[in-house]
């Protein structure tokens, strides 16, 4: 079967999985459904000939699931009340999103067809990458030699996000906030 048919099958499976993840009442089932959607994305990356991305997506998604289960599944957390869904907001949103979808179909017709990319810059990277950088993995050569500045920015963002998480979690309880103000 050609790649496009496999991708259509995987994408419909992911759409069903994400609808289940949003509508389930039980929290643990919703988190596991989102894990399954992430696995589907990883398999799609394998089909699209991107093994680097498949490994990284799979591992980071498992880590997200571990963090979410660790934080949200406890015995003394309440269950989500079957509360009154704001029907007007839901209806208006669905209609607006369907309208956006149908208005965007002519835009997608303007793109080059699936499987024929333009590749104007990438041709240079593919032909000269191995010789100029000495690395056999062209994706590594791009992120660590031609575009190493972007990787520096990404490392900084990850560092800041981790520091922010630690700061939020580690605030000790204060008895009276006004007493702690420094002059």
């Amino acid at each position, binding site marked *: 079967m050609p*790649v*496009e048919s496999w*991708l*259509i099958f995987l*994408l*419909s499976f*992911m759409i069903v999985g*994400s*609808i289940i993840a*949003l509508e389930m009442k039980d929290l643990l089932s*919703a988190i596991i459904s*989102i894990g399954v*959607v*992430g696995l589907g994305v990883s398999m799609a*990356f394998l089909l*699209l*000939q*991107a*093994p*680097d991305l498949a490994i*990284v*997506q799979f591992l*980071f998604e498992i*880590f*997200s699931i571990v*963090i*979410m289960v660790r*934080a949200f599944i406890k015995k003394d957390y309440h269950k989500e009340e079957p509360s009154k869904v704001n029907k007007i*907001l839901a209806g208006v*949103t669905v209609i607006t*999103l369907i309208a*956006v*979808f149908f208005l*965007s*179909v002519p835009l*997608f*017709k303007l793109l080059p067809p*699936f*499987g*024929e*990319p333009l*590749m104007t810059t*990438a*041709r240079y*990277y*593919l032909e000269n990458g191995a010789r100029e950088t000495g690395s*056999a*993995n*062209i*994706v590594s050569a791009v*992120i660590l030699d031609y*575009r190493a500045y972007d990787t520096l920015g*990404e490392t900084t963002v*990850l560092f*800041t*996000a981790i520091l*922010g*998480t630690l700061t*939020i*979690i580690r605030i000790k309880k204060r008895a009276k906030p006004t007493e702690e103000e420094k002059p």
Partner: protein
Amino acid sequence: MTVYLLCFTLFLIGLYGIITKRDLVRIIISSGIMGYAVNLMIVLFGYKNGSIYPIFVKNMPISPQAMVDPLPQALVLTSIVIELGTTAMLVALAVRLFEKYQTFDITKIRRLSG
């Protein structure tokens, strides 16, 4: 083109979740769905029919014309890592909010005041 439209549908489902849902955990899950859809869309733009991954192997001569586009893969690598940092921070915020207000419902959190 069907593939692009299905990916856009996944993105719109995530958007619907962020706008309509009232539980903080669902909002975090929906932002994850939007992240998956965007990453998949960018890699879909770079696929070439009948091509192979952009890695040179020692005793197998591969012509550079038969490789997929490596640039979208490099950009999406960055994006996946940053998504994890954002999700970790959202989870930390949600845990602290639960500790203070004893609920995950965002309408109730807006009404109470410190």
